[in-house]
C-alpha cells in the first residue's frame, strides 16, 4: 500500500472516502458502468484501502465521463467522481512532464472545439 499516494488522492480530491457506507448507488447510477473494469464504488473502496496501483493501471480511469451522476446521487455526499478524477490526475502526473505544449495547440484547433477542452488538454493529454 502506498500511503503517500492515498494521502495525495485524499488531498487533491478533497473527498473523505471514509464517509462511504457501501450502498453502491454510485455504481447503480453510472452510465459507463459496463465499460469499466473498476466501478465507481470500487474506486472509493480501493482508495480507502490504499489499493491504488490497480486503479492507476486500469483503463477504467478514462471511462468516467465526469457526468457527476454519482456525486448527485450519493446519499453520504462522498463524491466518487472527484475520487476518480484525483486518481486520474495521479496517473497523469506519473507519466512525466510530457503534456501538450502551448505552441502545439494552434495546429489542432478547429472552430467547434470548446475553449474548456483546450485548457483541459494541457493537463490531460500526453504526446
Amino acid at each position, binding site marked *: 500500500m502506498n500511503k503517500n499516494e492515498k494521502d495525495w488522492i485524499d488531498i487533491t480530491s478533497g473527498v473523505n472516502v471514509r464517509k462511504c*457506507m*457501501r450502498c453502491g448507488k454510485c*455504481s*447503480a447510477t453510472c452510465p459507463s458502468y459496463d465499460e469499466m473494469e473498476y466501478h465507481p*464504488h470500487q474506486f472509493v473502496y480501493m482508495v480507502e484501502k490504499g489499493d491504488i496501483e490497480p486503479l492507476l493501471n486500469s483503463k477504467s480511469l478514462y471511462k468516467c465521463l465526469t457526468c457527476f451522476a454519482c456525486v448527485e*446521487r450519493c446519499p*453520504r*455526499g462522498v463524491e466518487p467522481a472527484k475520487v476518480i478524477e484525483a486518481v486520474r490526475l495521479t496517473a497523469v502526473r506519473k507519466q512525466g512532464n510530457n503534456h501538450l505544449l502551448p505552441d502545439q495547440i494552434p495546429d489542432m484547433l478547429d472552430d467547434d472545439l470548446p475553449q474548456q477542452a483546450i485548457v483541459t488538454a494541457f493537463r490531460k493529454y500526453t504526446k
Partner: protein
Amino acid sequence: MQRIGVFVCHCGTNIAATVDVKAVAEALSHEPGVVVSQDYQYMCSESGQELVKNAIKEHGLTGVVICSCSPRMHENTFRKAAASAGLNPYLVEIANIREQCSWIHKDIASATDKAIILGKAAVAKVHLNAPLTAGESPVVKRALVIGGGIAGIQTALDIAEAGFDVDIVEKEPTIGGKMAQIDKTFPTLDCAACILTPKMVEASQNEHITIHSFSEVSDVKGFVGNFTVTIKKKARYVDETKCTGCGLCTEKCPMKKVPNEFNMGLDNRTAVYIPFAQAVPKVATIDPNYCMMLKNGKCGVCSKVCSVGAIDYKQTDKFIEQKYGAIVVATGFNPIKLDKYDEFAYSCCPDVVTSLELERLMNAAGPNGGTLLRPSDKTHPHTIVFVQCVGSRCDDEKGKPYCSKICCMYTAKHAMLIREKYPDTEVYVFYIDVRTPGKNFDEFYRRAVEQYNVHYIKGMVGKVTPKADGKIDVQASDLLANEQLHINADMVVLAAAIEPDKTARPLATMLTTQMDTNDFFTEAHPKLRPVESATAGIFLSGACQGPKDIPETVAQASAAAAKAIGLLCKNSITCNPCVAHSDELMCNGCSACEKVCPYGAITYQDKEFRMPDRSTAIRRVASVNPAVCQGCGACTVACPSGAMDLNGFSNSQIMAEVDAICK
C-alpha cells in the same frame, strides 16, 4: 465562621488520570473557611457518601464542596447525603471537574490547575449559600396525552387503568394514527386493525378517558403538577354528541372527488366523511375545503338526510381550558416527502409508491379492496422492486442522517405477503444493510429469503425510469456480483425515511421541552431517563422521541404512563427552592420584573414602610409567589435597583465565582 469541607473524587481513573486529585485537595485545604479537604476513589459510592456524612458530623461543617462529575449527575445524591447528616441540602456545591475538566483536557498540569480554580469557585460560592427549604405545590390529578396513535392510546389506557383521568388530544377526526393505516404487522403478520381497534374502542369507552378528536393544543402554561392547557377543538361542522356515525351523509354527499388521506390519496372520499369504518369517535366531519355548502352556500344535502340533525354549518372552533398534572407527548411520525429524489421517479410515475401507500393498496379496506393492483392501470404486477433507505442514512442535505429503523422489517413483511398471495410475482429488495435487531426479527427476514424466495440484492437502486410500455426500468448495482442490473419492473416500492410530525416543533416550544436537530424530542437522559423530557412533568411516548416499531412504541408508551402515574400519585411535589425573592426595602415597584416573568409569579402590593426619617410611606413593592416561580432569574436582571435576587444563584454568589475564576 464558616466550616467548609471539600471532597475530591477520583471517579476511578476518570478524573484521577488527568487531574492530580491529591494536589487539588491540598490546594483547596488552604482556602478560607475550609476545615477538611479529602480525596476518595468514588465519592458517589455508599462509602464515599459515608465519608461526607461523617465529616459533616465530625467537623460540624456549614458547607460542602464536592469536586466530581457534573452536578447534573450527582447533585441530588450529595444533597441527600448532606441532609441525612443534618446539613441543609442547599449548602452543597459541586465543582464539575470531570465533564468540564478531566475529560476534555489531556495535560495533567493545566487540568489540575483548572480543577483547583473550579474548586475555589465552588468554595467561594458555598460561603454565600443560604439554607433553603423547598416548598410544596399540589398536583392536579389529570393527565394530557397529545397524539392519539397507538402510543397515545396505550399511554392513556395505562394511566386510566391506574384510576386517573386522562384526555387524548388528536388532530385528526379519529384516533388510531399510523397503525390504523397499516395492513399487517411484523414479525407475526397479525392484522393491525384487529389488534388496534379493540384498544381504540376501549379508550373511547373508558370512563377515565376523554378523547378530543380533531383538536390541537394551542397553549400551555404552568409547570409540573399544574399545567394549564388550552385545547382548540376545530370546527367539524357536525355535532359530535348527536351524530350516530350511520354514514348516510357520506353516501349522499355530491362532492365525491376529495383525495382520501386515509388511503394516501390513492382513491377519493366525499366532502363529509368518516375516515374509516372503525373510526373512534365514529362521527362524520365536513371538510370545509371541499364542502360546497361551506364554500358557497349551495348544497345542504347532508343536513337534509341526517335524521338526528347533527349537521351544523355554523360551528366554529372552540377553545377549552383544562388543568393537568402531567403531559405525555405522543405526536408520532410521518414518511418524508420524496419529491426531491428525482432518480426514483416518485412524483412522475404512479406505479412508484411508498411503503405506506403499499399498505393501503394491499389492505382489504384500501382502494382496491385488498387486491394488489398497479395504481396506473389496475393490472396485476408481476415484478416488484423494493428500494431501502430512501432518504435515511443520508448526508446533511440529502435526507435524514439516521436509520429509520422500521423499513427493513416492514419490507420483509411486504415481500413475504406478496409472495404468499401472488406466487407468480417476482420480488426484488435492494438493500444496503438488512437490520433486524429484535425478537424473531432475523428469523422473519430469513424466512422471506429462504421460504418465500424473495431476491435480496445488496446494492442501491441508481435510477428508476418509467417506460413507454408502462413498465419501469430499474437500474441498480449488485455489489456482491459486481454488476449493474436492469430490472423490468411493474411496480417500485420506496422505503421512505420517517420524520417527526410537523406539529412537534411548535408543540416543543409551547412545552419548553428540547428537540434534537431532527426535531425528535430529547429525552432527559439517553440511557437512564428515556421516557422523560428534561422539563419536569412532560413525558415522551412513541416515535416522537425517535424511530420505533410498534412493540417498542407500546413499551415506551407504557413506560411513559408509569412515569406519569408516579407523578399523579403524589398529592404534592417538592418545589425548587431556588426561586426569586424581592427585597422590599429596595424595590421601586416599577413593574420591570413583572413584565419579564414568564410565569406571572410576580405581583405587587402597596405596603406601609417606616422610612429612615421616622415618617411612614406607602410604597408599591413586588412579591414573588415561590410556588409559581421556576427560578429562571429574568427578573433579577430586569430589576435596576438589585432588589430582586435568586436563591441559589444570587448576585453575590455568582460574583464570588467570577472573582475566584479570574483571580
